């Protein structure tokens, strides 16, 4: 709930929930029921509440969130596919006074960009990374990602992913937690109100760590892609709870300070 909004009243009614200021009026381009939208809004709310809209630079991935610059009313850099962590590193190193976040899909963060992701983590870059794991490539039409579950059908695993041919769902968060660089790694979901509230708290914590110069934070989100999962939005939520969480359990993985 956007705390900023608390002041306004309509008659005896008070506005208790509204679009955060860090979002402008542009409509999202996401499909119906896509969790990118929820996550975008939570990040915007966190920025509002921390009062850092003027000093935040976001980096948006090539992926369904490529249009982020359209609806976030902050400065945004739009890097090449997979390079978001490295680009965020460059921006933060050049201007340590800015709050820099990296927003990355699983194709971006965990496939083509694994090298840049892992080394930003290992160096403990003082950035905040949002890693949106929807178990496939949304934008390009639903291909297999390293995070795709075993048995999951995608356009490039039409018979369902097999471990033998394509390996295992890649646990980036657990993997990166083995490194000494990261300060905070957590896995969140946004399929219900409780998870949404927790996710937002995690986002704020991660931003705060950056503002306190504490180093690298990673928030992985289990995210629904109803259209490419071939499900309606409610079913997609259900799939996360029932199947995806089984492979990628929610919760904090490390927190060091």
């Amino acid at each position, binding site marked *: 709930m956007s705390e900023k909004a608390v002041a306004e009243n309509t008659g005896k009614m008070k506005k208790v929930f509204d679009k955060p200021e860090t979002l402008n009026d542009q409509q999202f*381009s996401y499909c119906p029921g896509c969790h990118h939208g929820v996550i975008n809004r939570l990040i915007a709310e966190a920025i509002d509440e921390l009062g850092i809209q003027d000093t935040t630079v976001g980096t948006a991935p090539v992926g369904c969130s490529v249009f982020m610059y359209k609806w976030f009313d902050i400065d945004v850099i739009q890097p090449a596919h997979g390079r978001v962590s490295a680009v965020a590193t460059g921006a933060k190193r050049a201007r340590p006074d800015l709050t820099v976040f990296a927003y990355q899909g699983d194709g971006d963060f965990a496939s083509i960009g694994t090298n840049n992701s892992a080394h930003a983590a290992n160096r403990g870059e003082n950035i905040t990374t949002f890693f949106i794991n929807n178990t496939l490539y949304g934008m390009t039409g639903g291909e297999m990602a390293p995070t795709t579950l075993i048995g999951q059908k995608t356009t490039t695993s039409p018979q369902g992913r097999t471990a033998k041919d394509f390996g295992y769902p890649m646990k980036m968060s657990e993997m990166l937690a083995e490194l000494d660089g990261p300060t905070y790694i957590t896995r969140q979901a946004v399929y219900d109100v409780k998870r949404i509230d927790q996710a937002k708290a995690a986002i704020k914590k991660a931003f705060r760590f950056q503002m306190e110069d504490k180093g690298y934070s990673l928030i992985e989100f289990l995210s629904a892609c109803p259209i490419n999962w071939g499900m309606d939005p409610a079913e997609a939520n259900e799939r996360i709870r029932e199947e995806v969480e089984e492979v990628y359990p929610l919760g904090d993985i490390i927190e060091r300070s």
Partner: protein
Amino acid sequence: MDQYSTIISGFGGQGVILTGKIIARTGMEEGMEVTWLPSYGPEMRGGTANCTAIISSDLIGSPVVTEPSSLIAFNKPSLDKFGSRVQEDGLIVLNSSLIDDCSTAESNNVIPLPVNEIAKGLGNQKVINMVALGGWSKASGKLSLSALKKGMKLTLEESGKAKFVEINEKALEEGYEAAKEESLASTT
């Protein structure tokens, strides 16, 4: 016939892509030169999808068409985008279930069909595209109903959807009939 081009446009999910493929497939079966070109990529997401099918007696140069011979428009944005580009004396088949304001060029031959209602009557909203295609067949006269039925059948069978052939045949027929009446109406 030299070359006859059709743009099919609507929301994602309205069967736009398949409609165009069936035109091309049918044309091919009829021994014509054909091309089919979709719009593609993320702009399809939540927006309009469209594709262009060309059938021709000669080799086809550009598969891109700025001024189509005909348009099948399933929704208002589609009509807005492509309606004015249709060739003089060209054909516009439009979905009157979703489009109220049918302001198009006078010179066009406009066939409004309530495809959603007709499809509802058939018990399957998914066949609105075949209803429209049936109408297009009648109004354009470029591919016969029976040829389209065959083309549709082949197309569906090849993508493992043979079980939908029957209902789609029905839809083609109903659209064809409705267009008959409609052209009658517009001439009276």
